């Protein structure tokens, strides 16, 4: 456990009247720094908020944006929702898989990039849409352009 997590836990608890409500904000804050939520981290968070470990685990596993395994420095979400699919998102995904040499759901060997599918990201006017570490990149011109700007720069 890192000392500042205690501070963050107290801040989250102060903001929301019931301690449980501090859970999601605290998990977000820790994951942003750590990259993912390891078993140890989950134990620490449970302790900090005085919640049962299985409870924290079950919450973490419910939400798709919490990662329980290590991810790359850059997590690329490619929207495969209908409006994006009508504008070439599947082809974009295949090209990214080819260029990165990985399949959707995987991380490159050098630990740089994790490639994930996203459901509609509420930016369908900018299709095809991607997010890099939850920052919108849209419309994506091509797989090459996305990688040049977001990964190889």
């Amino acid at each position, binding site marked *: 456990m890192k000392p500042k997590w205690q501070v963050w836990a107290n801040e989250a608890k102060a903001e929301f009247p019931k301690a449980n409500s501090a859970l999601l904000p605290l998990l977000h804050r820790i994951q942003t720094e750590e990259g993912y939520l390891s078993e140890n981290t989950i134990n620490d968070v449970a302790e900090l908020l005085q919640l049962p470990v299985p409870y924290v685990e079950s*919450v973490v596993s419910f939400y798709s944006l919490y990662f329980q395994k290590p991810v790359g420095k850059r997590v690329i979400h490619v929207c495969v929702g209908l409006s994006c699919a009508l504008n070439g998102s599947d082809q974009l995904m295949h090209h990214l898989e080819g260029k990165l040499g990985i399949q959707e759901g995987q991380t490159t060997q050098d630990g740089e990039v994790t490639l994930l599918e996203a459901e509609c990201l509420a930016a369908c006017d900018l299709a095809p849409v991607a997010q890099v570490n939850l920052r919108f990149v849209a419309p994506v011109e091509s797989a090459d352009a996305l990688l040049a700007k977001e990964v190889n720069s």
Partner: protein
Amino acid sequence: MSQGPYLLRNQVIADIDQIDVYEANQGYQPLRKALKEYDPKALVEMVKASGLRGRGGAGFPTGMKWSFLPNDGRPRYLVVNSDEAEPGTFKDRELIEKNPHQLIEGMIISSYATGAREAYVYCRGEFLYGAAQLKRAVAEAYQHGYLGENILDSGFSLDIKVYRGAGAYICGEESALLESLEGKRGNPRLKPPFPAVAGLYGMPTVVNNVETICNLPPLVENGPEWYRTMGTEKSPGLKVMSVSGHVNRPGNYEIPLSTPLRSLIEDYAGGIKGGRQVKAIIPGGSSVPVLTADKLDTPVDYEAILAAGSMLGSGGCIVIDDQTCMVAVSARLVRFYREESCGKCTPCREGTFWMTDVLERMEAGAGNPRDLDLIRDMADNIAGKCFCPLGDASLGVVVSAMKYFEDEFEAHVTEHSCPMGARLYDTVNH
């Protein structure tokens, strides 16, 4: 009376996300007016008189919802639903990213009207920027005396908190949202009790959509009669429509309700790309039935769209051209519900799983003649048998597409391939 746009002023006023620009354009004047000239009851009456209906999907009358709060002295909460994850819908993102003060002003007015002393915005986890914009704007509003203790010397006090979910469409359903806001898994609650009676932390709670609440500042400024100069008796006022898919100018458009669908697609969104024809329109987000091109003259309002065989829903209008395979469209959308089913009940969890499988198999040319009946059978086993509306929502497009485009579904199994050549759209991951 000012000229429109009213909800999308960000499209004509640069930097309106900054508080000084917002204030310079009459921002926070409606709040002053509300606090000075109205008591809470009168505001609720005004919202009732305007006929404003909730913009989150169900179209429930907002003033009526507010008047359901029990008068029993318990603390009340206002919770704004910014979970926006219904495929094809992207209006709330623009509203919070580009004009956060409008929502905050609407929330202060709504909280004053409903007696809430604490209000929350629940943003979907992917709205990292939108949530940051809101947090910054909330901090500015405190500095300028619009939030906190004794707002503008009115005696009314309010705190606003911005909360981020973590990736789950089901958290847009209001009771699942409240679970998530309480730090739990986002499983829907049994209703009743409705949130008005037992909502956040068990207290009386109003849950409203972002766009619904954004209507409050112009409504207070211009009055309910003005609101009723637009739209129809049952669907008065303005609606932000998100238009996407095969159109030349996808985007959010603020329209007076009952503007014809054709005008929305042709005049506002610039018509279909490449001079092709409309094949189908999903007018209200992925949960509603498709309309065919012969329905293009339908006015965009709650009753007319319903009479045409669909629903206005969230206003996410997905336009599909004549080169597109409706089996592929259906497969993609049912797959969405499979991914987002919370897993609590069997018909939804298993039904969306198998239905996706069959549709993707058909699209890949590996379907068999019994598949059409199989899909109908699965649909019967989902319809009306699920714990929350997500299960039924998964059927809107596939059932209607099979009705209007049955030949196309049949051709997939008789020809063992996609007759459209699966060109625009390679859905298949086999």
